[in-house]
């Protein structure tokens, strides 16, 4: 007996696992851009687009795992700001020190979040909101509320400003490797499946004997580490540690994750679709820039935030409608 709810659910799941929609829209936008704008397909636009969006993809990847457990991490933007300062300070020692150093700082913030959520039983949004505040304060303290210029003589800025083998930016390459690794972890390892199971039902997961706390700690620490990586990209790409950056990044990340078909309540999600979601969101802005350039519209930078919010709103509406229909049919 297959009832209607089951049918809906299945369809929704298929949409998610295949993530056809988001890739199709991404593809369509690319074609649109190529046809409409002369320089859209230029090597410069492609590499700078990928380079700029690498940090957003990194953050979205971490967020994706947190959301799959049914949690949320609001601290990613401030943590990235904090680690960008750390990276800037460490830049004289070269990328080989700055990169692991900044990531370690991010991991530490992730561990704080994990501690708050798992040990102190503080709701994730409050815990990560507090960490957001702490990281922001911390970033301002260690930087003296100044942007911290990186050491241009070391190899640090190569990461954010040069291409590997002259083709792809180092940043997107690193993020690509990270994405593949996380994809494998999610699809092919016990901890990855546990992450999804927790989001599906934490109680059931515990009754099935899964290591719930370990998986939850993993996602928050991972998210912190991803934010740390984004901070390195930020410092390296813009030549400075920026304690005031990162505002609204959590929203971008959440929007990318949700667009990629991950359920906000957890239990369902896909790594490639999250990457596609982040690229899609970035592409929307890229195209708006081109439109600005053509003079058809004139959008100030401030529209970015409005559009991000609107983007999330539409996606959430869509998801809520699906869920409501599912629940109604199930009741």
């Amino acid at each position, binding site marked *: 007996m297959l009832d209607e709810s089951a049918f809906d659910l299945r369809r929704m799941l298929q949409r998610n696992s295949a993530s056809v929609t988001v890739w199709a829209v991404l593809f369509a936008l690319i074609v649109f851009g190529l046809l409409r704008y002369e320089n859209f397909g230029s090597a410069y636009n492609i590499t700078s687009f990928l380079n700029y969006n690498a940090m957003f993809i990194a953050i979205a990847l971490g967020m994706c795992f947190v959301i799959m457990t049914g949690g949320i991490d609001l601290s990613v933007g401030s943590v990235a700001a904090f680690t960008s300062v750390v990276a800037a300070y460490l830049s004289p020692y070269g990328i080989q020190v700055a990169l692991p150093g900044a990531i370690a700082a991010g991991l530490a913030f992730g561990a704080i979040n994990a501690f708050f959520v798992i040990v102190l039983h503080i709701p994730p949004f*409050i815990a990560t909101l*507090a960490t957001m505040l702490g990281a922001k*304060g911390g970033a*301002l303290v260690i930087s003296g509320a100044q942007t911290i210029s990186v050491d241009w003589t070391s190899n640090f800025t190569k990461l954010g400003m040069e291409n590997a083998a002259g083709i792809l930016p180092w940043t997107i390459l690193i993020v690509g490797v990270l994405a593949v690794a996380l994809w494998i972890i999610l699809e092919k390892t016990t901890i990855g499946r546990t992450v999804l199971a927790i989001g599906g039902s934490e109680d059931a997961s515990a009754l099935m004997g899964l290591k719930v706390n370990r998986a939850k700690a993993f996602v928050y620490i991972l998210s912190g580490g991803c934010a740390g990586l984004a901070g390195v990209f930020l410092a390296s790409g813009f030549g400075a540690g920026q304690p005031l950056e990162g505002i609204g990044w959590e*929203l971008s990340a959440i929007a990318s994750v949700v667009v990629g078909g991950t359920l906000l309540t957890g239990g369902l999600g896909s790594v490639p679709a999250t990457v596609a979601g982040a690229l899609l969101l970035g592409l929307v802005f890229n195209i708006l820039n081109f439109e600005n350039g053509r003079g058809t519209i004139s959008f100030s930078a401030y529209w970015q935030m409005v559009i991000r*919010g609107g983007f999330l709103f539409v996606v959430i509406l869509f998801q*809520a409608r699906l869920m409501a229909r599912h629940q109604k049919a199930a009741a």
Partner: protein
Amino acid sequence: MDQTVSIEKPPARLGSRIHGGLLALVLLLVFNALVTPNFLQLQTLFVNISQVATIAIVAMGMTLVIATGGIDLSVGAVMALAGALAPLIFLSEFGVAYPALGVAVAFILPLIVAGFCGLFNGAMVAVLGIQPIIATLILFISGRGIAQVLTNGNLQTFSNPAFSYLGTGKILGLPFQGWLALAIACVLFLTITRTTWGRYLLAVGGNERAAFLSGGPVRRVKIGAYVICAVLSGLAGLIVVAINSASDAARNGNLMELDAIAAAVVGGALLQGGRAPIFGAILGAIIIQLVKYTLLANGVEDEVALIAKALIIVAAVWIQQRRKA
């Protein structure tokens, strides 16, 4: 709490939480009196009252939302939006041509817009069933974005004594907004304790199922809480603009959601809902402001104050969660 047998007035039910809060307040005051230079001066009081007022006004709205078991992250953004609108109105041609009417509209229209923001949040939560964090996250970002789009990111400075009275006026020698906050507190207190809406608000937060089965208008109550919260945030936004005689959409209300949540929780609001300690929110706001002031006045950087606030929030929620368990 266990020995509570007879209870006279609702505030008394806040029990030990408030006592803890009062204790913290007394400690802060004593510490400041002893250590902080020039603390026991009228000027200090004025500065703090005008700061506390905005936090308290938003925290009271937040308290209502938290009472339903929700949360509103968009309060700071709504402040920025309302704050950006007001100068736009009275600096417009219309506002210049009809100054009195312009100022009146500059008060009312931003509050209406704020109300619609609340309606949006409330509808997302109560009708569509979206988690409050996510629902209000949308305006948390876009609201400020809209404010910046409206002002093109510019700082709007103005000189409009009538409007500025909201932030700089004094009654009986004390800042106007302090009185305003107090008046709002009284109105909200009466609403919560004396009206059916207030009763339902606490019932919905205390046990939504039971409230629903007893005929409670769950949806209306929730939406109402978000609308009131947004309108109060809008008002706070206007006050900030009036104090500064300038509107900066990027800074107005920045991080206010954290202050408001912290004040509400320190004041005794339970995150799972069912309690709306309005005067507790004011106490919480005073404590948050005093902590900030204490650190600043003693040469601790502004940024460290942020960390202190983060710790206060975590500690307050942690204590709450432990009691629940």
